[in-house]
């Protein structure tokens, strides 16, 4: 039973990261109807930035905040330079754009910081949390930061005017323009926020997976699985999906014979396929109530 609790809690901790990645993917998907394959690489690059800042002597939290700001601006810049011109282009052109972005960021990171694996610090430490063997302080920190982030986002989208405008622009762009919302900038803002959210995921997971240019590959696939499971049209679903995928991954690795660590990733992919077959809209996919 302790093993089970332990695995569930560890699953919630990594699930928090998947939830952040899924949320980042869904935010961009809502805005431009495309999956951002480079979301993981963007997060990886941000994490390197924070690492570099710490190498230069900044404290963890100073590096954290500066990285958030950098990621926000970088996300907006990527949208303005690369994807705004592609807004009316066919799907495949956009896919090519995302793959190019993926390759460019991955190689640049390798060029700047090389491909050796680096230690990444945790501000929470890795001792047992509150003396319990079930969960480490870093895992507790991952969950805590994610929960704060999610509450902040909920507040932002529900109770601020700019959040309202962003939701409006994503749901009915034409009507949004007719009430005076600059939908183009709302999309850019969405990119900035998604990139910042991704950078948080990167910085929180880096102490676990270690820092290197390919660190986010597996994480992004879990993030996609979470987004598909929850429903690509639902930010709430993406978050729930993230936690579910995290728990499921850990339990499958522990209890299904032969899965172990090696086969965890195929499980995420199997999950994506099963969800697409059985419930394409995902658990919380668009359920717009309409009067007939």
């Amino acid at each position, binding site marked *: 039973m302790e093993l089970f609790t332990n695995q569930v809690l560890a699953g919630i901790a990594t699930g928090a990261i998947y939830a952040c990645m899924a949320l980042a993917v869904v935010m961009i998907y809502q805005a431009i109807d495309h999956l951002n394959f480079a979301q993981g690489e963007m997060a990886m690059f941000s994490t390197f930035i924070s690492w570099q800042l710490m190498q230069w002597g900044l404290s963890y939290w100073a590096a954290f905040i500066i990285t958030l700001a950098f990621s926000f601006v970088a996300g907006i810049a990527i949208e303005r330079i690369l994807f705004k011109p592609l807004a009316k282009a066919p799907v495949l052109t956009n896919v090519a754009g995302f793959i190019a972005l993926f390759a460019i960021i991955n190689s640049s990171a390798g060029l700047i910081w090389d491909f050796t694996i680096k230690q990444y610090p945790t501000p929470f430490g890795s001792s047992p949390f509150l003396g319990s063997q079930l969960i480490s302080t870093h895992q507790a920190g991952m969950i805590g930061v994610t929960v704060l982030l999610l509450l902040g986002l909920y507040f932002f989208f529900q109770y601020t005017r700019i959040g309202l405008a962003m939701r*409006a622009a994503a*749901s009915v762009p034409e009507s949004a323009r007719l009430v005076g919302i600059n939908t183009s900038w709302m999309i850019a803002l969405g990119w900035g926020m998604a990139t910042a959210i991704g950078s948080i995921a990167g910085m929180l997971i880096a102490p676990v997976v270690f820092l290197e240019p390919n660190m986010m590959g597996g994480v992004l696939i879990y993030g996609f699985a979470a987004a598909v499971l929850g429903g690509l049209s639902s930010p709430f679903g993406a978050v729930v999906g993230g936690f579910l995928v995290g728990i499921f991954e850990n339990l499958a690795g522990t209890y299904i014979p032969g899965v172990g660590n090696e086969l965890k990733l195929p499980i995420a992919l199997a999950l994506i396929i099963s969800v697409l077959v059985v419930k394409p809209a995902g658990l919380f996919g668009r359920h717009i109530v*309409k009067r007939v």
Partner: protein
Amino acid sequence: MTTLLNVKDLRAYYGQVQALHGLSFSLNEGSLTTLLGANGAGKTTTLRAICNMVRSTGGIEFDGKPLNNRSTESIVRFGIAHVPQGRGTFTTMTVEENLQLGAITRKDSAGIVSDIERMYAHFPVLKQRHTQQAGTLSGGEQQMLAVARALMLRPRLMLLDEPSFGLAPLVVRDLFGILGKINREDKVSILVVEQNAQLALELADQAYVIETGRIVMSGNAKDIANNEEIRKSYLGY
């Protein structure tokens, strides 16, 4: 009387297809003007061209200032509220959020709060449903919401695209009564596009008739309504 909206030689295109062929008309401050015409005559295109939602050439002046080449969202800031065909409801959001969106360009939060209350007084049904998803409202209620959302801008000019579409006759009467009241009491100029010519002519003071992208008739609404020949050949009643 001053001219609020002046449209000159307006031509609009959907890709290669030309939908408006040099259309000119004007609207006086405080008036309620209607654009009439059959399906496909270019009524909706005219409204869309005013808000730069379709490629067009020609002159569009609002209060003496040219609107051409301005983005749709910046035209709103002149005080032009457009209720599009199909009402443009934010269906996944609540009724109250829809009203707040109507005022999203305004900065006076106290004024917005009091205007929402004013809309609830105009349209009591919206108050009953203010926390409900807008998509669950009936057609008539959604049209009320669309008009209320447009009024939240405190517009100088309201563009309405077929407000009667899909509504029961009694509901249409109600709605047009409210539009007349808004025009008189709140001093909002209104340009309404309608297929229901009879009703629109009862409400409006000025009327224009469009056929295949051109104005073919204009004048006082009462005169047009009383002219049997025009009614029979252009308005079908």
